[in-house]
Each structure stands twice: as structure tokens, then as C-alpha cells.
């Protein structure tokens, strides 16, 4: 492995502070440079490793940029039809209730074609974790408008910017599922700065641990960037996200378990 290293005398096993999780397969992620998918995969892998869940995890990948999740996470995975991951997860968790089951979905998958499956799985309170990566655009198919695209935002199917009058407002799926009694923990986070990564990891750890309680669905939205779809550099896209997306999608817990 070709490496760029810092001070060599410090590089000793006893000094190790951080290394890539072993739950990540030793390959290169196919995501665009700077894409939040990679960071989210990494956090999830670290938690699966730290919590010792690798042998009991079954994940479901969507249709979208993260369809190939099963190439990157070394756990049993089913690839689901577009939007149907919560239904697939329902089948799995009902039949194998002792396993840790999660879905990983983008905004087209969860909030467009999958709206019904998302709402009904949450309404039934399926004991699964739903990870919702929201970058307000359809990345895999080339940058079209999504239900979560914010007003005025340009995309390949809203070239003049999202026009609320003809295209509707952004669909606030996380807020909607938080109103359902079937959800147990609902939160919205981001992964673009170290502080936010730490907060996301804390939130996701809770979501994972809560599954053992069988108290309902844990739903975590990750507001993320799409440098390619937004036609920006990664650093620019994170700045744009901070300045524009967070006013529509404010970070924080929307629903926490009653103490």
C-alpha cells in the first residue's frame, strides 16, 4: 500500500488512535470524492464493529447511489427494489427477530417511490433502523430533482430551480415519521465536519442499541452533499449545504424516547 506518512517514530501499534473499520471491505468505495455516503458507511461500519454485531447484522441496500452498499460492508445484505427496503426489512425482522436489521436509503428511494413503505413500516413500528441519506437530488441517475430538493435549487429536471407552485414543497419525511407512534427515536444529523460526525455516531449508536428494546422504528436522516449532482467541489458543496439545506432540514433529535 502506497502511503503518505507523518512522523515515523510515532507510528507504533500502542499509539494507534484511529484505523479504518474491519467491517468495511478492503476495496475502494465507488462514491464520488467527498460524498457523505462514504462517511456514513464508515460510521455504520465502526458501530457494527464496536458493538460486536457483525455476525448478526442483515442490511438492505436501495436503488440509488448506495445500491452497491453490499460491496462495501462485510455483513449479510439484501438488495431491495426501489423504495421497498422497509417492506423487505419487515419480512426479514418479523422472521428473524434476533438479528440487527437496517435499511440504507436515499431521498428518491425513501421519499418518492418508497413513501408508502416508509410510512407504513414506521406506522407498524417495525423494530428496524432506517438510515435516510438526504442530499436533495437523484445522484445515481444524473442529478434530477427529488422530493427533498429545496425551493429554488437547480437540478437537471428543475433547470430554473424548484418551483413550488408546480413542483410542490420539499417533503419532510423525517418530520412525518416522527409524528407516528410507531417510531421510537427520530433524528437528523450530518457528516460534513468532525463535530457532526461525532454527533452522528452518537445518534446512530443509540438507534442501533434501541433495536434490542423492540420499542419501534429508529429513523436517522443524514443531510448530505452531492458534489456531482450539485456541480460543486466537495468542500464547496459542504459549505452550500450548511448555508442552504439546514434551514429546511435542521439538525437534531425530532423524537427521543420518553425517559
Amino acid at each position, binding site marked *: 500500500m502506497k502511503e503518505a506518512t507523518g512522523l515515523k517514530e510515532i507510528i507504533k501499534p500502542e499509539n494507534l488512535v484511529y484505523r479504518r473499520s474491519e467491517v468495511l471491505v478492503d476495496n475502494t468505495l465507488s462514491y464520488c470524492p467527498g460524498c457523505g455516503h462514504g462517511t456514513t458507511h464508515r460510521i455504520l461500519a465502526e458501530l457494527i464493529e464496536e458493538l460486536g454485531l457483525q*455476525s*448478526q447484522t*442483515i442490511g438492505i441496500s436501495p436503488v440509488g447511489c448506495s445500491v452497491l452498499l*453490499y460491496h462495501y460492508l462485510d455483513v449479510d*445484505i439484501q*438488495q431491495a427494489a426501489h423504495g*421497498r427496503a422497509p417492506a423487505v426489512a*419487515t*419480512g426479514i425482522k418479523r*422472521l428473524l427477530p434476533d438479528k440487527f436489521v437496517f435499511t440504507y436509503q436515499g431521498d428518491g428511494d425513501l421519499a418518492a417511490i418508497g413513501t408508502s413503505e416508509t410510512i407504513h413500516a414506521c406506522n407498524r413500528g417495525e423494530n428496524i433502523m432506517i438510515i435516510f441519506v438526504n442530499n436533495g437530488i437523484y445522484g445515481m441517475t444524473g442529478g434530477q430533482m427529488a422530493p427533498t430538493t429545496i425551493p429554488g435549487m437547480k437540478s437537471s429536471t428543475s433547470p430554473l430551480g424548484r418551483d413550488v407552485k408546480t413542483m410542490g414543497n420539499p417533503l419532510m419525511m423525517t418530520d412525518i415519521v416522527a409524528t407516528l407512534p410507531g417510531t421510537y427515536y427520530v433524528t437528523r444529523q450530518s457528516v460534513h465536519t468532525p463535530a457532526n460526525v461525532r454527533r452522528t455516531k452518537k445518534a446512530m449508536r443509540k438507534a442501533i442499541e434501541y433495536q434490542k428494546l423492540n420499542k419501534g422504528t429508529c429513523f436517522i436522516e443524514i443531510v448530505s452533499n452531492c458534489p456531482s449532482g450539485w456541480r460543486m467541489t466537495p468542500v464547496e458543496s459542504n459549505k452550500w449545504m450548511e448555508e442552504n439545506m439546514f434551514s429546511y432540514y435542521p439538525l437534531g433529535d425530532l423524537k427521543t424516547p420518553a425517559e
Partner: protein
Amino acid sequence: MEKELRLMKGNEAIAEAAIRAGVDGYFGYPITPQSEILEYLMEANPYKTTGMVVLQAESEIAAINMVYGGAGCGKKVMTSSSSPGISLKQEGISYIAGAELPCLIVNVARGGPGLGTIQPAQADYFQSVKGGGHGDYHLIVLAPASVQEMADFVELGFDLAFKYRNPVLILSDGAIGQMMEKVYLKPQKPRATDSPDWATTGKGNRKERNIITSLDLDPDRQEDFNHKLQAKYAEIEKNEVRFEEFQCEDADYLFIAYGTSARVCQKSVQIAREHGLKAGLLRPITLFPFPSVRINELSAKVKGILSVEMSSGQMVEDVMLAVNGKVPVKHFGRMGGIVTTPDEVVEKLKTLFIGGE
């Protein structure tokens, strides 16, 4: 190993047979004429006795995807619907076939197209046998003609599904779903405790993770995979053809019919012979694989073949392919939910083949 004798509706027989066959999960949605399957299972509450999961999904689409999830875990899972709902499931069915998963789908067919009617029809033959969903795949299709077969085909369906890692469809119709007949039910079989080695059950002690997917972006690999599927279907065609013959040995004319139409034609054979016409009936039990070889053999000995199906003529195309021009093949069938009568069929046989052609 006593079998229990009961008087049951076709739909109920499927539900009871599913419980007794040790099915792990049923995911369904109400639609006439098959809602009794879900209702019976909810009433029976097998979760308490065998641990079988019964769930009313929010849509037929959700139900087939729940089946996908359960099937991916190596479990015996099934769903049921009627024609319009089966249309909704096609994407999920294609995914199940593409991921090589076992499962059972029941279509209690009704008249179409569109919302159609609630009375029986056999206009889903193309949908069931020729694809329905996108891509080069086949379902194994079983066509029951009695309440007994509704019950028996559940276990047979799962045996075939797991043997070939392929979805199996029971193509029934509203008449058989609703009629009541005697049925012998097998004793309760326990649900399986082990899982196939390809299933996603959590890595456990396995070195490699299991992935259930139908995606491969590499064209060479995807072509190889399609060849693998085709080889599987060739095996199925070689080994799993099932049919029943009724008075074909000396027949001059042959009826080919399945399901309710076969019941009608059985009477038509009797009526025809009373009128001096030597008719026989070949009833396909598997529609895929189709009994082409046997139909081809019989066509050498008859003067004409009438395909009888409650449709505009779907199965007749496969009959024609099997006969390969040896003798005239025609179709007769009522549509709109109307069930043909035995006399009607005999009249058609006469007018289409004997008089005034």
C-alpha cells in the same frame, strides 16, 4: 399420519394447507375473490401454534417485497392476490426470480383488464407463463382444478421453489377459490429450523457474507447468469411437467383446458361421446413447464384440438406451438367473468371442427 377430511372453500384450503406445511410467513392484501386466505390465517393465528408470521401489508407491492426479504433469509414465505394485484407484484416477482429466491405466489384470477370484474377468468395465462415482469425469467406455474389441489399445491409449490431456487405461482381462479369441496388435509409439519447456505441470516461463523441481489453491471457476468437461469428452466422443463389425461386413448378430438375450464371440459367429453363424438381431455397441471411433448404426441392421433380457456385465447398459442401444424388447433372461451358451460363447449367443437368451417 392420518389425513383430516374437511369441507372447505378453495381459498381456505390454501390457508390451512399453508399452516400445516410449516410455512414461515404469509404477507397479503385484501382483494376479491381471495381475501379469505388472509382472513382465515388471521383468524387461525398460527403465530401462536407454529410461529408462522401473518401480516396484512399496506399494498400488494409491499407484500411481495416482504416475501423477498423473508425468502432471502431462506424462509418459506408466500403471498396471494388476484389479477390486478398480481400486476402490481410483477417488479417484485422479477427481482425474486433474478435473485434466485424460492417463494409461493397465489393468483386467484378474475376478469380483466383493468379493475375488470370479480368473477373468474383465465386471462392471466400470458402474465403467468410468459413473464409478467421484465426480463428473461419463468415462474413454475401450477394450475389447480379442485379444492384438493389448492391444498396439495402449497407443499408441492414450496418443494419445487426450494429445489430450483425459483418462485412458484399457483394460478387459480375465482370459481375454485370460492367453491366448497371435500379436501384431505395432511398433518402439521414443523417449520424448518435450518437455513440454506446462501441465505442472509447474519454472517454468524461464515467467513463470507451472503448477498442477495439481482444486479450485475458487468455484461459478461450478467449474460452468464442469464444462461444459468435458462439452464435451470431447461431442467424444470425436463423434470417437472405434470398433466392429467381423461379418455384420450381413443379420442378423435382433444380438449386442452386447465382449472375451471378443465372441470367443464370433463363433462363436455361425456356429452360429446353421448353424441357419438370421441372427445378426450388433456389437463395441464403445470402451465410452465407446458406439456408440449405429450400434446405433440397426441396430436398425431386426433383430427382437431380445441383449447378451452376463459379468455380471448392465450394458452392456445402454446398448444399451437406444441402441435406444430400437425392438426387444426382452435380456441374457445367466454370472457368477462363468464364460465363456459359443457354444452357450449361441445357445440363449439361441432361448429369449429365438424360442420361449417
